[in-house]
């Protein structure tokens, strides 16, 4: 074990190296670029024995690693924002093929206007595709999750590709001390690549030709079943990783100061750190609040959330991505999970396009929500925390704009 000061992006690269990936292909996009730069360097220096395909686009990057994986290689790609959207067609194709793959997504807002700062629209846009989707809070977790992604994706109970999200700049370009596990230990823990089939001259496999609609339907059914199975695999991998490498994160969700909590903040990604700070402060004032950090958006941790939240007085969901015409994306997931429990529920859309929120604002929102709930349970699907510059000039619910 070595401790190095690494950016989130370098933490990804070290995990890819430890997983002994055979083929890497990626296309530059801020803030992902330093991942592909670092991996190129590792490969050219001979530190990582892999092939690098320097493609001309993200569509090709994912197609190339998918092709490599179909031939039996362990393969990896990474992207952000517009790159991920450009890949979208192949994202679905790879999942439907049940080919294990790992992709790092350095989360970034989507234009216009051009913007390289963090929000979660890009990664959450992929949530229906059949990829396992996880999002990290800090750099150590980025390394651990990326490494675990290979094990989860290649588990025969899963056989689905996996995305690891890390927040643009906040993690990708910010350094923190990261434990890098020993290669021998990783080798003994991560089995050689497994996959449902390979396409090779002797295999006689044809993948993707037209199938009867009923069979196609059942392929979807089977993906859904594997998503359910993945929940167990994810918990297992998290536990055994803890035993071997000394770090566990709680599996599908991380609970922070949940034990005697009556109110919960549901949040995902790096700003969960801010939420934890807010909770620390409030706990000093004896406010019974905890943080439920979503680590895996897919499979959605329904059972686990019910276990944690069913006795709650109130749940406050922070969303860094919105489904236009509806609500924040995590909010709608949480709401369908908690139905029909009578829990006070509120969704806040904030932090879009990299706009900062910070612990004190989160703290204030928690207190406001508790006060509202104490006057009687509420159900508020969307309120927007507007940027400082515009606060007060516009109503916090876009609905009221029309009313005016």
């Amino acid at each position, binding site marked *: 074990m070595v401790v190095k000061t690494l950016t989130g992006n370098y933490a990804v690269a070290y995990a890819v190296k430890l997983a002994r990936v055979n083929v890497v292909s990626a296309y530059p996009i801020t803030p992902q670029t330093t991942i592909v730069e670092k991996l190129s360097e590792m490969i050219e220096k001979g530190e990582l024995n892999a092939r690098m395909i320097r*493609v001309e686009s993200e569509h090709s990057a994912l197609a190339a690693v998918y092709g490599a994986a179909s031939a039996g290689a362990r393969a990896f790609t990474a992207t952000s924002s517009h790159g991920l959207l450009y890949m979208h067609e192949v994202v679905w194709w790879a999942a439907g093929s049940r080919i294990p793959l790992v992709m790092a997504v350095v989360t970034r807002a989507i234009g216009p206007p051009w913007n390289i700062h963090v929000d979660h629209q890009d990664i959450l846009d992929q949530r229906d595709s059949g990829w396992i989707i996880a999002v990290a809070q800090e750099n150590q977790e980025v390394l651990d999750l990326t490494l675990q992604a290979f094990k989860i994706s290649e588990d025969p109970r899963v056989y689905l590709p996996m995305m690891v999200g890390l927040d643009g700049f906040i993690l990708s370009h910010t350094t923190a001390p990261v434990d890098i596990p020993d290669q021998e230990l990783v080798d003994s823990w991560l089995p050689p690549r497994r996959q449902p089939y390979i*396409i090779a001259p002797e295999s006689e496999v044809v993948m993707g030709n037209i199938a009867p609609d009923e069979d196609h339907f059942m392929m979807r059914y089977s993906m859904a079943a594997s998503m359910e199975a993945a929940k167990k695999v994810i918990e297992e991998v998290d536990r055994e990783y803890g035993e071997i490498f000394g770090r566990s994160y709680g599996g599908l969700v991380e609970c922070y100061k949940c034990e005697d909590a009556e109110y919960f903040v549901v949040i995902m990604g790096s700003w969960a750190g801010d939420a934890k700070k807010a909770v620390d402060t409030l706990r000093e004032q004896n406010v019974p609040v905890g943080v439920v950090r979503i680590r895996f958006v897919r499979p959605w941790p329904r059972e686990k959330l019910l276990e944690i939240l069913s006795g709650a007085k109130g749940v406050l969901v922070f969303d860094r991505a919105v489904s236009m015409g509806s609500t924040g994306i995590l909010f709608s997931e949480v709401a369908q999970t908690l139905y029909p429990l009578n829990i006070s529920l509120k969704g806040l859309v904030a932090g879009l396009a990299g706009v900062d929120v910070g612990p004190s604002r989160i703290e204030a929102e928690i207190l406001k929500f508790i006060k509202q709930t104490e006057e009687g349970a509420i159900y508020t699907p969307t309120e927007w925390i507007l940027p400082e510059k515009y606060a007060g000039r516009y109503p916090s619910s876009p609905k009221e704009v029309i009313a005016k």
Partner: protein
Amino acid sequence: MTVNIKRIPKKKFLMPGNAACPGCPETMGMRYLKMALGDNFVMVIPAGCSSVIQGIAPRSGIYAPILNIVFAAGASAAAGMKAGFESIGRKDVEVVVWAGDGGTGDIGFQALSGAAERDDDILYICVDNEAYMNTGIQRSSLTPYGAWTTTTWTGKREHKKNIPLIMIAHGVKYVATASVGYPTDFIAKVKKASQIRGFKYIHLLAPCPVGWRFDPALTGEIGQLAVKTGLFPLYEYENGKFQLSPLARRYKDPSKRVPVIEYLKLQGRYKHLINKPEEIKKIEEYIESIWYMIDVLEKAFNPKEEARKLLGSL
């Protein structure tokens, strides 16, 4: 390289249950591909008629391992597969892309150009039936001037995009044109390409009875007429050398060519211009321009070092 058709393995490549139309040039081409390559290859097929021709899963009417892939990603998926095989120590597997003219010259062009520039070790075959047949005969950038399609009802106004020439300009290892009308020529070119390491491109003309509106018994003959009229010269470009294929050399001489009207009048897609001399003239001028280009290529890429040095890699 000469190919004796009698010595070629007779193993069945196309099975009952494949879903091609009668007289389909794509299945003809696939059969020749298998004859040329034997067993040690995999196919990557982007969307197009050949995705459908395979028939219904879990079976397949084509006796080869196939990775079907999204429309725009034929070349990139194949490049990845090749790298995948190499990275796990299987250097001998040939990866062949089998893509339509749309999958090659339009939506898949970016990926194709990328793989060519990187000199990825794959064999890319464009099966050129001069339109999007799978979606019902819409024009592509490789549809020729004057041809009717369901998006050019009065005939396409632009000439065919010259993809093989663009591939030569990429400076790849091998570029050839072929026609399903001349199987042994195509087989020889595939065999030669498979001996070369690096990026190889073969442009296979594939007259489609459905889209070109002709009698399905005539696929081979129309494939030959395209060459005999001078419309589609057969050639090879290899390591900086360009040469006309032996059976196409005589058509350099305009007097040896079959008048283009003989080719056009067999095809319903040209029906509206058969009696328009000014339209026929345009097509004849196009043929002249193609041969002018051939002349330039022969001079630029002749075996003489001097000329090559002079022109660099075009």
